[in-house]
């Protein structure tokens, strides 16, 4: 083994880990002890490995992510017992059908909770901060901007929401599909740096599996947000604001 070969072998070497047990690395390390130039290179390399490791581990994790994951799961588990029992009964009945379908070699399909994930993701957008693509109080400009960017723009606002001041919009993405995000200001005092406190997300219904099918708003808590979801004319509407049910009811 020469010096250059040793450098190649030592490239994945991480001091303090089990890498030294690798016979090739052990041989290269032994060579580095005898060869001052290689030894010097190894010293720099170890410092570089340590810096790289620190850089990767320094990736900032968004605030509230842990709480969001936990609260979303807790919300799922709080499904009423009666509903759960009904679901189990329905599942038992469906299982027979599924077995038959499987025997016919139909493709299997995993449990679908896509809507829950969509709702959680959009709650995360509101909670963790976002940048508005367009800041304006002009609803027509907002609609036009969304249309130009191929995001849903033919939305219909509930009557109680129409007088609320719009402050801008953004185009979010959900599994490759564009989601319109409309930002409103309800008039309540806002924390410093926050420009809106009520958000409406609009996405094509076909993009979100297991989404609600009725235009009757369904309420759910996600982290510290209360959300309302309804369907209308092939679109899913998701309204979010901080607080609980009384905070969102006036806009539905």
């Amino acid at each position, binding site marked *: 083994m020469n010096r250059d070969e040793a450098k190649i072998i030592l490239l994945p070497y991480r001091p303090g880990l089990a890498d030294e047990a690798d016979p090739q690395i052990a041989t290269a390390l032994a060579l580095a002890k005898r060869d001052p130039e290689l030894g010097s290179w190894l010293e720099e390399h170890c410092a570089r490995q340590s810096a790289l490791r620190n850089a990767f581990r*320094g990736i900032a994790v968004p605030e509230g992510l842990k709480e969001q994951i936990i609260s979303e*799961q807790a919300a799922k588990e709080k499904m009423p017992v009666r509903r759960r029992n009904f679901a189990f009964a329905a599942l038992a009945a469906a299982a027979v059908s599924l077995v038959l379908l499987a025997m016919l070699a139909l493709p299997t399909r995993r449990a679908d909770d896509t809507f829950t*994930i969509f709702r959680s993701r959009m709650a995360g957008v509101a909670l963790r901060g976002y940048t508005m693509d367009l800041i304006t109080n002009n609803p027509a400009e907002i609609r036009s901007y969304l249309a130009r960017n191929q995001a849903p723009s033919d939305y219909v606002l509930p009557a109680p929401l129409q007088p609320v001041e719009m402050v801008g919009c953004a185009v979010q993405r959900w599994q490759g599909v564009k989601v319109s995000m409309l930002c409103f200001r309800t008039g309540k005092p806002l924390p410093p740096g926050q420009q809106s406190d009520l958000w409406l997300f609009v996405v094509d219904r076909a993009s979100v599996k297991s989404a609600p099918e009725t235009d009757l708003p369904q309420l759910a808590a996600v982290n510290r947000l209360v959300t309302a979801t309804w369907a209308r004319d092939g679109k899913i509407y998701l309204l979010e604001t901080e607080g609980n049910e009384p905070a969102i009811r006036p806009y539905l």
Partner: protein
Amino acid sequence: MARMAEGMDFENLVACYYKPLYQFAFSLARNEAEACDLTQQAFCIWAAKGHQLRDASKVKTWLFTTLHREFLGMRRRLVRFPHIELEHADLELPVVPPVTASRLDGEQVLAALAQLDEVYQGPVALFYLQDASYNEIAEILDVPLGTVKSRLARGLARLHQLLADGPPSKS
């Protein structure tokens, strides 16, 4: 959830692993929203299917594997990656000049990682984030051990080369 790893409940499980999972996801996707999605989906799937895992000591690997699969699914990748054994790759590996370690920061490292071919990004991220062994990386990425070695060798060499070269000029 029928069973939790080593008596760990869901909250503790999330508390233990959400950070490294997010960092891995961000290394792959380089997009906060996607990384959050991937992290959350990994735990969602755990909640639904984690009880199927018989060996409780494999929870971490299971979560990383699941996240990686979700990432691949999200991207709907169509490229078939060649499996190049290390022995065949040796001659092509460059000997890289030293990088001044003190000037490395996360943004710079992730920018360099982004320039690597996608097949190298996962192994390299796991290598540094988790101090994962070759076997663990192979298990998480579901590729043969030899492939992991060759991808790591090439990926690390290229990463170090990119960092030594500095950021690309904007001309």
